[in-house]
């Protein structure tokens, strides 16, 4: 949209992306909603979202059906499990990239490690953790240590 069709200026697009990364929900999905609204109102949002999801949805269901046929085969299961674990590893790598600005902020590191401890190891509900963590983070940010 930015480079080929020139529907939107790069700076403008970066602005929309920043908004959608700040908001909850799937980032690309939110981008489609915001841009769809900007150009064509509510119908634009719906159409943009459906357009983004429709074909990938067909793909993912096709792959899932194919896997369902072969999931009793231990070798196939091992490969797919390996892919899933590698996908988990990708999340961890992404998080470490995201954490680069925290390198010199011990409070930030403590908050991140704390969230990991209670969510992944303690298995506490995210709905309980998020408000507490957000409050702590907010206070730390206001004190200028985050």
């Amino acid at each position, binding site marked *: 949209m930015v480079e080929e069709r020139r529907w939107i200026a790069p700076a403008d697009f970066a602005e929309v992306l920043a908004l959608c*990364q*700040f*908001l*909850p*929900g*799937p*980032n690309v*999905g*939110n981008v489609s*909603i*915001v841009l769809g609204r900007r150009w064509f109102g509510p119908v634009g*949002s719906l159409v943009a*979202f459906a357009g983004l*999801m429709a*074909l*990938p*949805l067909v793909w*993912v*269901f096709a*792959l899932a059906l194919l*896997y369902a046929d072969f999931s009793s085969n231990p*070798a196939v*299961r*091992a*490969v*797919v*499990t*390996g*892919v*899933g*674990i*590698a*996908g*988990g*590893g*990708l*999340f*961890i*790598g*992404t998080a*470490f*990239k995201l954490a680069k600005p*925290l390198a010199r902020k011990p409070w*930030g590191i403590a*908050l*991140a490690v*704390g*969230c990991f401890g209670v*969510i*992944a190891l303690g*298995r506490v*509900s*995210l*709905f309980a953790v*998020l408000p507490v*963590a*957000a409050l702590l*983070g*907010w206070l730390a*940010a206001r004190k200028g240590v985050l």
Partner: protein
Amino acid sequence: MLQLAGYFALLSLVSVGGIPSVMSEMQRVVVDVQGWMSAAEYTQLFAIAQAAPGPNVLVTALIGWKVAGFSGGFVALGAFCGPAAALAYWVGGYWDRMRDAAWRKLLQRALVPISVGFIVSGGYVLATPQGLSWQGALIAGASAAALYATKLNPLWILAAGGLLGFLLF
């Protein structure tokens, strides 16, 4: 199915940082609390969503499909995207005013370490479907390091994970 839809709709509104942030919480409810599938099946569904082209939010459709068939898939995807989309639609009109507000910048800074903790949790939970194992730790560690330190296309990293899975499991 209603239970699934209601839960995903709530989850939608706390998914700061997108799908990776809530994969751990979703697994807790889908596997531990409701018992709709095993941890191994959860990791396998995630693998399919990662390997297929398209946004990773489609894993919600696969979870819904596993629980309640195709209609479950559509409902789960809609429930997870709907509330966040409504919020994005509404906030889209106010963003110009919000963007430079002091509270928003503070909140954004506060959310960085939280997202980091949540996303690592998601990765950890997905990488340990049968508890901690050296095979799992090796695959996940190598894949995290490859993403962090190289510019490899993530699809190659996933493919390598599949190969290692074949050899080690």
